[in-house]
């Protein structure tokens, strides 16, 4: 992270959804009190299981949803103060999104150049038509769609899944972004081509200077590309810090569970007695207390009454766990 202010920062970011009606009216706490930072030239991985709120965070940052509470600051400026269409457009160009499904995110009836040139026209109106075509070819070359001029003239069905996802990154890159929100960008791709996309993300950080929020449930790929890791559980941040640090000594029992569950051909087989078989948490009208307590072998009394805050631990990363915060020796749950 650089000195001074981070590129993007959230403070107490919260998003609730109303579900049901009348007497059944309930509130689903998709994201609760999330404060995070993304620095310049930094890849931050946001990991967690399905329903943990990680995609909702991305959509809040992309301004698809409005926060129920809390604030997002981009380059120090609060987003709730964005009022003109011009500011809004500028933010969307600074922070574009790459979606999970490369088959659903490109219009199949147009050549791939279509959306590319249109977004350039919208976001960079000062360019001439020739400059736009040139720029499109340039970003296609950067993301490895070579020769750019030729690939631009193809239809989406003529491209493989990996190539389509590169188109997604090219579209983002054409806006000269500061931060790309990548929501599970490789999870629908075959394993043999995933690595290529992950390497592309590292290249964009190193050579183009963009930051990336990499949303994933695959913690091994997070380790491969990210500088920092944020682990979410049930709408809240469980643990965050430098990726090697968090994975080498996870302090939150949920992070420990997540790390232990990654299939590893080189490891010893697990003892079936010792594994967690818990179900995902309920985040509808949750009561105070740690949301992981039902599955946590280390839970103590306070976990049932007080929601733990995300606090720095001695070993340089943060965890929201009463047990980890009160003991100096790392406690091992899984």
């Amino acid at each position: 992270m650089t000195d001074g202010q981070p590129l993007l920062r959230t403070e107490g970011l919260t998003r609730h959804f109303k579900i049901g009606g009348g007497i059944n009216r309930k509130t689903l706490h998709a994201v609760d009190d999330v404060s995070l930072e993304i620095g310049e030239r930094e890849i931050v991985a946001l990991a967690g299981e399905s329903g943990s709120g990680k995609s909702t965070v991305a959509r809040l940052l992309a301004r698809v949803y409005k926060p129920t509470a809390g604030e997002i600051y981009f380059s120090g400026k609060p987003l709730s103060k964005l009022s003109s269409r011009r500011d809004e457009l500028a933010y969307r160009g600074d922070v574009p999104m790459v979606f999970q499904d490369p088959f659903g995110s490109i219009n199949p009836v147009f050549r791939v150049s279509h959306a590319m040139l249109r977004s350039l026209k919208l976001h960079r109106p000062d360019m001439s038509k020739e400059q736009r075509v040139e720029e499109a070819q340039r970003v296609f070359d950067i993301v490895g769609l070579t020769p750019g001029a030729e690939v631009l003239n193809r239809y989406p069905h003529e491209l493989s899944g990996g190539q389509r996802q590169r188109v997604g990154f090219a579209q983002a890159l054409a806006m000269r972004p500061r931060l790309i929100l990548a929501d599970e960008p490789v999870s629908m791709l075959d394993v043999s081509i995933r690595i290529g996309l992950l390497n592309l993300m590292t290249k964009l950080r190193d050579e183009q200077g963009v930051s990336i929020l990499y949303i994933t449930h695959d913690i091994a790929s997070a380790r491969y590309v990210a500088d920092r890791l944020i682990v979410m559980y049930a709408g809240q941040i469980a643990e965050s810090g430098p990726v090697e640090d968090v994975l080498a000594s996870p302090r939150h029992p949920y992070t420990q569970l997540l790390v232990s569950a990654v299939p590893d051909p080189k490891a010893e087989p697990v003892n079936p007695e010792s594994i967690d078989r818990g179900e995902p948490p309920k985040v509808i009208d949750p009561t105070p207390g740690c949301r992981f307590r039902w599955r946590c072998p280390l839970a103590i009394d306070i976990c049932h009454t007080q929601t733990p805050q995300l606090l720095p631990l001695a070993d340089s990363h943060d965890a929201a766990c009463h047990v980890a915060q009160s003991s100096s020796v790392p406690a091992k749950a899984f």
Partner: protein
Amino acid sequence: MRTGQAELLGVDLAHITTGPVLEVRDLSVIYRTKAGDVGAVKDVSFDLAKGEFLGIVGESGCGKTTLLFAVAQLLSHPAEITGGSVRYKGVDLTELSEAQLATIRWKNLSLVMQSAMNALNPVKRIGAQFSDAMRAHGSTPNEIAERSVEVMRMVGIDPIHLKSYPHQLSGGMRQRSMIAMAMLYTPDLVIMDEPTSALDVVAQRSLMVQIKELQERLGFAIIFVTHDMSLVSHYSDRLMVMYAGEVAELGTTRTVFDTPRHPYSIGLLDAFPSIHGDKVPLTGIPGSPPNLASPPDGCRFAPRCPRVIERCKAAPIDLFRVEDVLVRCIRTGNGDGFDD
């Protein structure tokens, strides 16, 4: 009971306990499309012993799901089995009628599909779907009620959920109720098509452990298809790596992991970043699988293979036996490693 299975097949399969559960020989499947024939599965052969766990790995389009459907006789137009046999306890399934197959399905051979949300009927309670399958085999309402509760307990779901609709269950519970459904009778063979791919790692591991426990207890054989090689590493006895419709490598899981011999297996193993040890730059496997409407003349992996030599491109490659592994590579087929 309606028409007895033994009468239909001329043999009662439940009483056959010797020999392999399944013998697949030179099985080929072609999709007849307007643009021409696409050979999705080509000359696949394997045996499955009683109680054995076979993992099949490969990427999208490699033919692994088509192979499963061919084994279970579930292919429909434009797919067509163009050669080979699928002998289940000696009976060639490719020659049976639909009525004969119906006596075997769920009873001797069950299937667990990839997406439980789509495979379960969304407007029917779980219990009603169980009873559909059992009524088809002539079970009485009492038997159905009793067995439904039993199988739900077996997979660790409260039997109260027999009254639930699929959307009321979590992804993991839906997938487990599919497995419960596969256990309604005591099948000798359960075919699973990526049953864990929609789950996160924690739920995935808990399901794998559960499948393995059930298998040890009930003794059925499993064919488990996945794109994630590391997932089956601790559970399968043997591993088949498929590429472009063919078997690339087939051997005991440990051997394939410890000494992969096909360059594609090696590439797949190197494509997973690890959570432990040093962080090493990975490359994956550049390129994409061949178009099966016009596959390459020689080795089908040759266009992507980092070890390719001229001889690879000349003619189709046979499967070679090296110790207890079958491998489709002329460079390692003689038992040597790559000498470069």
